[in-house]
């Protein structure tokens, strides 16, 4: 396991340096352009260079590579086309390499032939990379051979691995580096190569054994940056020793504030916070200049060629100083820090502590190195929680982790922090706040997305709602704030009641139409969340006794919430003059409600109040009427299913529960059919009965028929248009013309006009229309054939 941990750290650390490379990318890309356009100059440059300049050696034979380097988009077809030649190429390459190495090993003096071989090796290396053995050999030659510095640098530069680099080669190279009198330049090139290729080295155990030895190079100022970078990649917790810390501090006092020392020191600090303390300046982002992206480009090309996936890039986190914006106060609200591991200064790290404790501490994965879900899965038993729990909010792997933790303290920590943060940032809760509304919105968004991720609300946001809702103006941060509302957990309704009735209702009634709609929307989300939560609970352990209790609570709370929304809607419709936009949101809510029994398995059907039904029935808006019909249809389907189940289980209790819903449903269906179909709604004994004297005063002819399918204000345009389209030559027509056959055509026409809800309702309730009102008798057979889902 330790191995794996090690490599895990290494890879993530090394990728830090990879992604830092963007800082200098502009310079290198420009130089690579020049290399392709004027080859002679760039060769000259690469031979006489004093330092390693970011120049890609020119490959004469293969224009392919050049093209690949410049356009990523046509990478695929190029590779495909070159597939045929691959085998012959491979053979030739092998031969050329073999000859070149043989030559290098026997050479004693630089000459003309030498240039040719070197060129061959460069070409091959840049085109298809070198096998581990070739790298081993070339590295040996480069550091050992009697070549000029420039040649050595060129050799080192073409050490591009196809697959991996053997650790032994690196270790051997190190011993050569010290034994022979290599120039500083060569050493630098070698170290830079090592940094760039760090991920390709197969093991790091033996290299790590050389840690102290590499560390001693730090004193050399010309190599300091590179050595420090290498150490940064190589360092493990056990490498951090007091004497090394002292040495670094001494170097620091000698050389001043060097970025590379800061980086190493901050890494040491993150491993052993008890030895050292450092605060990084807020602005600096990159500690190591990485100008070696030519190597990375080369590796990428080679990798692409061999069609393996490029390295997974991970964001650097350890060395980016996470500071609050300077202008902000230290404890002002809505600041979420980055996850940092908790310093261990308790007994477990003291020297007298047992070995076991030490081991467990060492195995822990610092939170800074956790980025992906797969990393989480691999190290799940070694994860240390962050020092500030709030930092988990932005990290999905950590949220995953928290979700399976049984530790109560985690939630307590999060709770106290979040409630403070919310109160501090909230403008209407605390007057002397110093957070802008924008910041508070962003903060709420983060909390909401975490809640959505966990699929439940935090107790702190619920608490915050209770405390702050009475003070809310109904405008500030409305979208976000109302989203918090929709995540109130399912509980006893008596506890939530005051919040809804005392705090929310007054705001609802006194604010704008748009506000009313958004409140209704979030209440719809709330009821959905409750229903979903209940469903998942019941599904998790269907036999458990708690289920019954949960269901009882859910039944009560959900129905109370629906009554509440019904009450709100009734009043709101009157206040807003039966606005169809508002009606749309109300019906949306009841659409969810109508499907509770089938969609969420909650044995409950609650009808909407008359205050919603009748305005929706006598509307002049077609969409509303259609929506209403669709909801009625869904109610019917749900009630029918409930009835079937009842008959199946013979549960007298359940029947009682549904009786009221059946009654109400039948009343509504009767009204609807009376209106649209039989035109008897205004007759005596019906729901819309009005004294005939009053009706006469309206002076409307055939007033009884004024709400049927043809004359209904919401449908009249359709009937008129139907006649105009069907009988355009008729000079004079009346709507009464639609009868018998034409009536059926008209119904089909309505379906063609996408009034599916109306159609579904008529289909399911047709026999009811023919034989006047009766309770639901049996499920309609046609019902199952009609599809419901696409009707909106």
């Amino acid at each position: 396991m330790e191995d794996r941990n090690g490599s895990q750290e290494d890879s993530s650390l090394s990728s830090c340096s990879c992604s830092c490379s963007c800082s200098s990318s502009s310079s290198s890309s420009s130089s690579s352009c020049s290399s392709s356009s004027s080859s002679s100059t760039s060769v000259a440059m690469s031979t006489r260079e004093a330092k390693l300049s970011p120049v890609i050696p020119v490959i004469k034979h293969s224009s392919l590579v050049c093209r690949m380097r410049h356009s990523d988009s046509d990478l695929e077809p190029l590779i495909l086309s070159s597939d045929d030649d691959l085998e012959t190429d491979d053979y030739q390459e092998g031969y050329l390499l073999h000859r070149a190495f043989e030559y290098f090993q026997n050479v004693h003096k630089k000459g003309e032939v030498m240039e040719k071989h070197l060129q061959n090796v460069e070409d091959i290396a840049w085109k298809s990379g070198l096998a581990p053995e070739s790298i081993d050999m070339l590295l040996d030659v480069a550091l050992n051979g009697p070549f000029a510095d420039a040649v050595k640098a060129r050799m080192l530069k073409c050490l591009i691995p196809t697959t991996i680099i053997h650790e032994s080669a690196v270790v051997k190279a190190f011993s050569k580096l010290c034994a022979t009198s290599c120039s500083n330049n060569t050493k630098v090139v070698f170290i830079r190569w090592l940094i760039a290729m760090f991920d390709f080295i197969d093991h790091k155990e033996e290299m790590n054994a050389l840690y102290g030895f590499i560390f001693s190079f730090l004193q050399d100022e010309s190599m300091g940056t590179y050595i420090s970078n290498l150490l940064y990649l190589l360092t493990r917790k056990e490498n951090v020793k007091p004497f090394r810390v002292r040495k670094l501090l001494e170097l620091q006092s000698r050389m001043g504030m060097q970025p590379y020392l800061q980086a190493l020191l901050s890494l040491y600090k993150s491993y052993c916070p008890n030895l050292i303390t450092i605060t990084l300046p807020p602005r600096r982002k990159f500690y190591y200049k990485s100008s070696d992206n030519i190597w990375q480009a080369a590796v990428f090309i080679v990798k692409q060629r061999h069609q393996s996936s490029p390295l997974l890039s991970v964001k650097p986190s350890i060395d980016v100083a996470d500071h609050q914006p300077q202008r902000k106060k230290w404890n002002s609200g809505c600041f979420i820090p980055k996850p940092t591991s908790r310093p261990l200064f308790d007994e477990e790290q003291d020297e007298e502590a047992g070995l076991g404790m030490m081991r467990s501490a060492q195995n822990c994965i610092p939170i800074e190195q956790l980025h992906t879900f797969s990393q989480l899965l691999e190290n799940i038993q070694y994860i240390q929680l962050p020092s500030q729990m709030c930092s988990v909010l932005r990290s999905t792997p950590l949220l995953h982790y928290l979700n399976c933790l049984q530790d109560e303290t985690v939630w307590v920590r999060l709770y106290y922090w979040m409630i403070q943060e919310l109160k501090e940032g909230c403008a209407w809760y605390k007057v002397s706040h110093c957070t802008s509304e924008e910041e508070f919105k962003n903060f709420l968004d983060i909390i909401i997305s975490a809640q959505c991720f966990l699929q439940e609300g935090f107790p702190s946001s619920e608490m915050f709602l209770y405390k702050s809702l009475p003070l809310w103006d109904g405008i500030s941060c409305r979208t976000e704030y109302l989203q918090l509302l929709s995540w109130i957990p399912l509980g006893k309704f008596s506890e939530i009641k005051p919040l809804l009735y005392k705090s929310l209702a007054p705001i609802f009634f006194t604010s704008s139409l748009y506000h009313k709609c958004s409140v209704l929307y979030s209440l719809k989300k709330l009821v959905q969340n409750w229903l979903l939560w209940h469903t998942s609970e019941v599904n998790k352990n269907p036999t458990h006794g708690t289920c019954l209790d949960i269901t009882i609570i859910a039944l009560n709370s959900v129905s109370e919430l629906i009554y509440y929304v019904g009450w709100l809607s009734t009043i709101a419709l009157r206040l807003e003059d039966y606005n169809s936009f508002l009606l749309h949101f109300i019906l949306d809510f009841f659409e969810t409600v109508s499907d509770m029994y089938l969609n969420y398995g909650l044995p409950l059907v609650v009808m909407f109040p008359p205050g919603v039904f009748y305005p929706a029935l006598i509307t002049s808006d077609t969409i509303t009427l259609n929506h209403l019909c669709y909801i009625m249809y869904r109610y019917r389907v749900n009630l029918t299913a409930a009835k079937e189940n009842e008959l199946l289980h013979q549960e007298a209790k359940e029947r009682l529960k549904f009786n009221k819903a059946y009654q109400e449903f039948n009343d509504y269906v009767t009204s609807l059919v009376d209106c649209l179909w039989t035109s008897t709604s205004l007759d005596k004994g019906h729901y819309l009965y009005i004294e005939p004297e009053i009706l006469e005063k309206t002076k409307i002819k055939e007033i009884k028929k004024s709400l049927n399918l043809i004359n209904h204000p919401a449908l009249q345009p359709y009937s008129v248009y139907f006649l105009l389209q069907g009988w355009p030559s008729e000079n004079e027509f009346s709507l009464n013309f639609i009868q018998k056959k034409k009536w059926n055509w008209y119904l089909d026409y309505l379906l063609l006009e996408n009034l599916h809800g109306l159609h579904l309702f008529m289909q399911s309730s047709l026999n009811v229309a023919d034989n006047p009102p009766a309770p639901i008798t049996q499920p309609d057979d046609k019902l199952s054939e009609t599809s419901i889902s696409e009707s909106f």
Partner: protein
Amino acid sequence: MDSLNVPEFTPKHGVPPRLKDYFTGASPFQKQLASVRKQTQFGQTPSRRKIPQCSPLQENVDPQKIAFLLNKQWTLYSLTPMYKFSYTNLKKYSTLLKAFVAAEKQKGLAVDMGEDFKFKVIFSILSGMKGTHRDPAAFLVQVVSKSQLSSNNSEDKVIWTGWFCCVHGDSLLENVPDDFTCLPLFLANGAESNTALIGTWFQKTFDCRFTRLTISAFNLSWMAAMWTSCNLEHYRAATELLWSVPCSPQSLDISYAINPEDAKALWDSVHQTPEEITQEEVDLFIDCLCSHFHRHFKINLSATRLVCVSTSVASAHTDGKIKILCSKYLIGVLTFLTELAVFQIE
């Protein structure tokens, strides 16, 4: 929900703990949520409180330390429970905090833990500074600059002081698991920048959070009444109340000073229930003062805002600053402040 008495879910593959807790009533938030749900109205505070008493535990406190805490202006903060704080590690904390402060002051230069600086940080326990035995011990943090002239025992200057305490914090203690230390009240004296540094360190290390504790006019009037009711042998200062009239460009302050004996006499005439102070009494007391003022100056103080109260016991300002003058009622003053701090963090 408690009455349901639901058996626990199976721990593995079950629901996450806090959701389960909603139904078992086992969550530490449960009680808090329940109480908040019941109150619903923001800012409800108890309508009766005990008269500040001299705590028997206070006798354990080193009188020198008490003297050190008196007559200084403290800025008030509330502090959420500290995670994994341990009284046995105080020495280690002081090393860490010292290094942290040093590193922060010279950003970019790393600092050796054991290094010697021009200042030191001292943690010390204020034993006895508690209301009941259940209250966790208070502790003091001092930043002391070493004088440069002579290293040995010459006058060390205290640059910054802060102390953490909890007096009668039962309501908070009940809800918090054992891993936490509840010291909800934090008082700081010294440069704000130092408070920021040290506060940041505490926040990072113990996953807690500092928030400025301001005192509302409502609570100030409580303080005025409570402190007037204290029995003192001799009064050091007049009872003074400061009202602020919001007007531009500068707000106008009205200072209202009363002879402390007169104030006590007024209070005694208002006060009825022994050992307790009720909301009605507080209101009446302030009303009497206001009407007296109105009779003389024709200024209606109830239309303005009370911003400062100073008596011989202590003086407090609405922006969260307090000065405690009398050692006898130290615990009493802290009890009320702890209550305010607990209210703020919950």
